[in-house]
Structures are given as C-alpha cells and as structure tokens.
C-alpha cells in the first residue's frame, strides 16, 4: 500500500520537475527542475522494489539467513537506484559547471538569451 503512495509521489515529482524545466526561464531553475524529476525517478525505482511487509535485504538479527528469501524486499532496485543517484549527481554537476561558464561569457541566466544558433 505504502509503495503506491510513494509511486504517486515519485511520478508527481517527475512531472513537477519536467514542468519546471518547461516553464522556468532561469538556467539554474531548469537544472533544479531536472534534479526534481531525477529524484522523482529515484523514488519510483525504490517504490517498485518494495514488497508488502518486508524488510531491508541485509542479514542481521531481524532477518535470518535461512528464510531470508521470504523476508526481504527486492535488492535489485536498491542497487539500481544507487547507481542512478550517482549518475544524476554527475550530470547535474556538469550542467551546473556549464551554467557557470555560460554566465561568465554572457552574464545572463535566462535561457532566452542563449538562442544565437537556430534554424
């Protein structure tokens, strides 16, 4: 049950993020939009890995090695989301450094001021 809420949350974030990318003129805000969408994606991934009433896939006091398969949630989305987060971070970092350089060259943060190439 909980995971369907988080799924809806994730999708909502995703769409909010895209909406921000489509409507905010400020470059940094666009990147923030991208980050929001990215975060939404991560939440979606985690939601998809959740199994009803189960726990983290780590063998400890709560989960014994013997019946671990019946006790834990899907470890794969957890692994995937880790990778996705790091990659999202990397992309964001590069985007931001582009913006820094663009600002240095053009002294503007509005996307509308960067359309000298067209047609």
């Amino acid at each position, binding site marked *: 049950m909980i995971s369907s809420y988080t799924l809806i949350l994730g999708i909502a974030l995703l769409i909010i993020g895209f909406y921000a990318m489509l409507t905010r003129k400020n470059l940094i805000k666009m990147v923030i939009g991208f980050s929001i969408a990215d975060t939404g994606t991560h939440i979606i991934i985690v939601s998809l890995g959740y199994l009803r009433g189960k726990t983290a896939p780590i063998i400890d006091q709560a989960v014994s090695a013997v019946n671990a398969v019946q006790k834990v949630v899907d470890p794969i989305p957890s692994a995937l989301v880790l990778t996705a987060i790091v990659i999202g971070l990397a992309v964001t970092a*590069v985007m931001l450094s*582009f913006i820094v350089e663009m600002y240095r060259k053009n002294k503007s943060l509005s996307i509308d001021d960067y359309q000298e190439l067209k047609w």
Partner: protein
Amino acid sequence: MVSPIYILILSLAVGFLLSILDKGGRRLSLTAFYGVLTFNVAVVADWLYRFVFHHVPNLVINTAGFKAPISINLELGVTEAFVLLFANLTGLLAAVYLFRKFKESQVSSLILYLLLIMGVNGLVMTRDLFNMFVFLEILSISTFALTALTRNLKTLSSGFKYMIAGGVASTFFLLGVVFVYYFTGSLNLGFLDAGQFTGVSLIALFMLSVAVFIELKPFPANGWVLDVYQSVDSGIVSVIAVVNSAAVGFVFYKIMPLMPQNFLTVFGIAGVVTFFFSNMMGLKQENAKRLLGYSSVGQMGLLMAVLVFTANAPTNIRYLIIGGLFFNHLFSKAGLFWLAGIVKQEKTRDWTVLRNNKLLLVLFGLFIFALSGLPPFPGFWAKWEFVKVLVDAKMFFVLTSVLVGSLFELIFLFRWFTITVKEDNSELEPMASPHGSMVLPASVFGLLGSVAAFAVMKYFYGFGWLQVLPIGAVLFFYLTDFLPAKVKGFLSLGAIAGYGYCIYPLIESNIQLFFGAIFIVGSAVNLISTLNRKNQSRGFYGFLLMMIFSFGNLLIATSYLEFFLSWEFMTIASFLLILRGRKAQKASLMYMIFSTAGAYLLMAGFGFAPAPASASALILAIESVNLPLISIIVLAIGFMIKSGSLGVHIWLPEAHAEAESDVSSFISAILLKAGVFGLMMVAISYVSHAPSFDVFYWIGWIGVLTALAGAFMASFQEDAKRLLAYSSMSQVGYIVAALALITHLGWVSALYLVFNHMMFKSALFIAVAGIYYRTHTRTMYKMGGLISKMPWTFMTVLMCIIAVSGVPPLSGFGGKWLTYTAFITKGWYLQAGVLFFASGVSFLYLYRLIHTIFLGQLKYEHQEVREAPVWFIIPQFIFLGAIMAISMFPSLIIKPLNVIAMRYFDSSIQIEGLTIISDLGYWNGNLIMYVTMGVFAVPFILLLLVKGKTQKVKQFNIVYSAERPESPQTTHVAHNMYAHYRKALGSWTVPRVEAFWSGVSEWAHAFGGFFRRVYTGNGQTYVLYIIMYIVVIYAVMGVQ
C-alpha cells in the same frame, strides 16, 4: 585472441592513470592514449576477422563469474564487431585529427575522449538494459564535457541544450528500464522477448524505446543536436555524429526484437519523416556544418527506417542495406566534418578555398558522392536493395518519401559541390596548408570508402572487371594526368579501341551492335575533336573514358543492377564533364538533379520489375519479362528525363550550352541516345507483354510535343549551342515518338533517326566548337559572314542542316519519310500533323543557325579569323562522309535496321533493289540523289555561262537605298530574328516548364524555410518538443 573486455579494462585503467602519466610529460600520456585507441581497433578487427573468415561462434563474456541473468554479460558477434571496428577506427582517426588540440589542451580532454570510446564499446557489447543506461551516461557525460573543448558562447549554449535534452531522454530510459524490470523481473536482453510485454508493461517498453529514439534525433525533437553540430569543434562533432550515433543506433537495433509491430512501424515512419524533413530543411541551409548536421540527422532517420522496414528481407540483403547505409553515411559524414575543420569556413559558399588543395578537393568530392548514394560507394547498393525491399513490401509512401528526401539531400550536397568547384574565390583568403595529422584521417576514410565500394562490387555482387573499368579509367588518368593532352587523347582512342575489341564478343544481337556503333564508334570519332586540347587538360580524359565505357557497359549489362550501375556511372561522368564548362555551375547542378530524379525512378521501376529469366544481355532478356504497368510508367519517365522529353527537359539546354564545346557533342549525340536505349528496352518488353493501359500512346504524344516545343524554342535562341540543344531535344522527341509507335516501321524510323541524329548533331556541335574556338563567342548575332573565313566548317553546317531539315536528297529525308509513313500506317494522324508542323518550324532555327553565323555581314573583329583547327575538321568530315554514304545508299542502313526490328515485329517494308516500299508509298534514295544531281547540273551550267560576266564586289557593296550601310552590326539582321513569329504565337513561347520547375524549387525551399523555424534556438522549447514528441508518439502508437 584478446578478449574484448580488455578494451574496457585497459581504457579504464589508462583513463584513471592519465592524469598521473601526464605529469611525466604530454608525450607519455599521448602515447598511452593513442596506444589504447589502437589496441581497441586491433582487438575488434581481430575478432571481426575471426567471425567472418573462421566462423567462430559469438563470444559471450560473463562478468563476475556468473552467468546471465545473474550477472551482466557482454556479447560480441559479427554485427557488434562490425559496428565496433568502425566506431573504434573513427575514434582513432578523429583522435589523430585532433592531435594538435590534444597536444595543447588539458589532459582532461584525453581522459574524456578515451572513456567516451570505452563507453561506446560497452554500450555496443552489453546485453543488460541497466548496464546500457550506465554506458549511455558515460557516453553522454564525456560528450557533454567534450563539447566544451573549445570554450565559447556558442559551444557552451549548445552543449547546455544538448545536456538538457539528453537528461530528459535518459530519465525516460531509466524509467523504462526499471518498469521493464518491475513487469518482467529481468533486465537482460537474453531473457526478454516481445511476448512478455502486454498491457501496461508496454508503456514501460515504450519509455525505453522512445528514449533511445530521442537520442537518435528524430524531427522535430532534434534542434539541440543541430546546434551542437554547428558550433562544436569538427573533430568532436565527427565523433558525436558518427561514433555516438552508431552506438545509440545499435542500442535501438538491440532492443528492436522486444518491440511489437506497431512500435516498429511508428518508429520507422518517424525515421522516414525525419529523413524527409531534415533534407528539405537542408535546402535552405548555408552554414556548412549545420548543413552536415541536417544531413546527419536525416541519415540517422533513414537508418532507423531501414532497420524497421527491412525486417522481412533476406539476411544478407538486410545486412547489406543496413551495413551499407551505416558505413556509407558515417565514413562520409566523418570525412566531411573533418574537412570542415580544415577549411575553417562557415558558409558553404566559401568552401571554394578548398580548390587550393587538390587532394582535399578530391576527398571532398568523394565524400559528397558517397553521401549522395552514388556508385560505387556502399550507399548506392544499399539504396538499390532498400528500394527493392520497399517495393516488394508495397510500402509506397515510405518509398516516395525516401526517394524525394534523397533528392533533396542530393540537391544541397551537389549545390555545395558545384559551388566549391566553380564559384569565384578571388576575394577569399587562400586556405592555410593543413597539418598532416588533419589530412590523414580523411584520406584514410576516403581510401576505406573506396575499398569498401570495391569489396561490395567484387564479393557481394561478383562483378567482373568490365563493370569496374569506368572507375579504373578515372584512376588511370588520375595517375597519368601529367601527360600532355594529345598523348592522353591518343591513349584514350587506343583504350576505346581495346574496349570495343573486348566487348565485341559479348555482343549477342544486332540491336546491341547498332547501339554499340552509336556509343563506341560515335564516341571515338567525337573524341578526335578533343585532340585539339592544349596543355594537360587535367581530369578530362578520365571522366570521358568513364562515360564511354559506361555507355558500352549498358549494352552488355545482364541484370537490372548492372544496367543501373553503368547508368549511374554514366551520369556521374557526364556530370563531371559538364561541370568543367566555365559557367557550368548551375547547368551541371540542374543536370545532376534531373538525372538523379530519373535514376530514382529507374530504381523504383526496376524494383517493380520481375528479374529476367535468361542470362543474356538485359536488352535481350527483357523480351521475356512481363513488366507491370507501374514499372513501365516509372521506367519510361526515368529514361525520358535522360532523353530530355518535354516537361523534364529544362536541364538539357543548360547542360549542352554550358559544357565545354567538345563535350557538348558527346552529350547531345550520344548521351541522349542512352535514354533512347533505355526506353527501347522498356518498349521491347512492352511488345510481348502489353498491359491493358496503352502507356506508349501517351509517350508518343509526349514525344511529338517535345519535337514541336524543341523546335519552337530553338527558333528563339541567340546562343548557337542552346539552339542546337533545343534542336536535339526536338529531334529526340521524334525518336521517342517513333519508338512509341511500337510497330516495325516505327522502330526502323526511330533507329534510323538515332543514327542520323548522332552523326549530324555531332558534326554540328563540333563545327560550333570550332567556331567558338576561333571567335570566342556563342552568341550568333555577334558573328556573321564567316563563310569566307571558315569554308570547311560552313560546308559541314550546310550539309548537316539539310540533313536535319529532311530536305532530299540527304539522309534526313529518309527519316522523315519513314516517320510519317509509320505514323500514318499506325493511325496516329494528328500526331503526324504535329510532327509536320515541328518539321516546318525546324527550318526556322536551321536557317538562323547558318545565316547568322556564316552569311550576312562579316564583323570587323572577325576579319582575321581562320578556319577551325584540323582536329575539329576531321571528325566533321568523317560524319559528313557517313551522311553522304547513307544518303546515296539508304539500304546500307535500312536493311540492318529492318532486320533488327524484325526480331520484334513482322517486316512492313520491302526492299527492292534500291527502292524501299511501304504500305503507303515508296522511296528510292539513290535515284533521288541522281535526279537531284541532274537538276542541279542544269542551272549550274547556266550559272557558269552567266558567271563569266560576274563581278566580285566588296562586303558593303549592296543596294542600300543608294547609301553605304554604316557598320556590319547594324546591317546584319540576326538578333531576335523571328520576333514576328514570337509575337504571333504569343503565349506558346512563354517558358512555362521552366516556370513550373522554378516554382517547384521555390516551394520546396519555402517549405524548408518554414519548417526549420521550429528550431527557435531556445533550449527550453527543445525540451518541450521532446516531451511533446514523446506524448504524440505515445498517442500515435496507441500503446495500450
């Protein structure tokens, strides 16, 4: 054999180490860098070799020691190896190209570049969806960062647009991957299949595929990539356009098996739409790199379409199509981007500086030709087979879009090419001599493209040396270009003789022999006139021989493909010959455009045609082929474009007029006959398998109207060569019309006209060439009175115009007699009436030709003009001799033609002695000749009696209202000679066809200009396009 996993390992290790290595000097880091890139190429090449020649099974690499799906696995098969070899090779060469940049910039760029190539390798080999995402991101991030290798506002803003777009696409990809996992419980391609996707899970698959598709830059969601292509350093762009595209394209190929048919169809159509629109928009583009961008985007769209629509083709054909287009597009595109970096001129118009460097110019031409899908480059074969596949699958919408799109592409590419070769470049700074490292990669790719072309010809199709000979001729004369023109001319004559000797045994029938005489012997005689060329005349004889050999190869072609190959060789060679003319830029471009449109029609037409059953030459084998109606129509239009029929003739006067004088005669006298030859081929099939709709009835009308229109237009020309060109159009109209009769007498007359026209039109063009050589003008009213200066040339022109006009006793009358008799016998009365009219009109231009040049008042500036050089006179008199011979003894030619036509029809004429008898009348050319001589003799004797009393007077001694005329210019009535006729005919003389085509061109450009407005340059708008595109595609597919 080294496992390809070491490509990843070594690249990573060296990539991580490079910044440390760099501390030991740039030389060290560069060595490691190039070492790894070379290593990659070597490993993949080794594997490809094993796959192809030793048929080793696909290599599967399980990482972490577990089998898939537990762990991620990589797979290397022949397709992967092919793509990777190409990608790695391009990567290496682009790195060589960037050598100087790499030497100077930070070590970071080396690392990024190396890992980019690593990412490509991983992306191609991996079988795991999420792993694909990771490699895709490696690829993307390194590319993003590399766009900033040259840091200016343009690259930065385009890089940012690129990243935002890429970010959206990869978000969707990621979502797709995890949803796929959620629904199927698997991430490995080996454990997924199309059956697992139903209902909601299709949405997951949709997100995955559409994300990859967005990365492949579909129209209109691709504005960002165009900006990148335009602004970023050429070396990097070549990698983005070639290596990245190849890898992402391959990802699409890998996930294709998962997609249901409706996905595939929509993607395929989206690809076609991209191809079409990109090329249309390219028409308006003037920035060279952006133009290449449009072309790249279009080609990727085509590649997608090909991937989708060839799914049912036989495997080897499918590989040829995909591989051919892939290789072709990528090697030429990389080469062109590299050249763009060397030329350093933004506007296509300024690429004229390339002329300073012959090697680069040749490479440029080679890449342009390859990109346009001309033979022998792989794109040609791919396009040929693709058209066939589309025809078989009845995908006519796709077929049309692909062909029209290709034509657009050809137009802008060749406009660029002709500008580069011809446009004035005196105002531009000459190009600095490029560093060797920048030239090397393009040269390697040029060579590689040629080798691939040869390999396809030799190993896939198994062509013999004769088919390759046209190319061989070009190469031979390229190498011996330092020789003087005369030596090369005689060499060429020898080569033609040798060629004739070689193909003679391959000739199986009279009809081939007849056209052989036209093509080979006619060419040889025409070639004599080129011996007048001075100096080296570089690059002339190679293309001339290429054209002549291609003519010959048309005769002996045994399959549609062979025929079409020779046809295209002929087009290329003739285009290049026309382009040599001083002001031939527009003319040659128009020629190329129309020829290619014709060629595409031929391609489609042959696609519709069932393969001939027998192994003999196509012209014979076609007898037993039942061509479907559509094929007949399309082929006929294609061939009629080449023979300059009304409506599609507008290339003809331009090309004839603007080509060098000694080339024009080839074009008119021989090249046009190739069109007739093709049309005849269609007609031969038609004879035995006539469809219900009488196509040739309408072709007949077109021919007749061509004859009339040509004659009209010829009458209003001031330029001697344009006049002759329109005359050729008119004459070929007669030929086409006669051919369309599909009767014995019709064909006899058509072939008779072919022969006759070849001779008199060659002689006339050579005569005009001689005049031009002496007077340096083609404008007729600027000449006059040259009879006294150039009596021999006058003689030729006189005889020829008698022969053209059909006045007895010369051979032209035979043509008229045969044609009218044939038309009336067939029952085409009104057509015959139109022909009569055309024949009447032809007197107008013929008289104008001879009068304004040779008669009337001699101009002061031509007082010192001498007779044309002997090299012009010899071929004229050879042709004249032949004309006299068949005038005197028409049965010399009528008898063999009768036999040729009897192969297809019962004979309709009897030949009794020297008289030829038809159902309607009779004709004794021999007796006519004697009577004419007789009646000529009587007044001639009278004249001699009178002549004793004649007194030779000076030029101006004329009865001029008792005054002396002031100057020859005002006395020579020549300019606008038939003004009254034009006035009388009024609207008939308006060049409507030209107006129509320029309208078409304007509309195409206007549409291109309209559609490219979608690319506003605003990164946010581009994101909107991408999301809208995804939504629309989603709706169109009706995913659920």
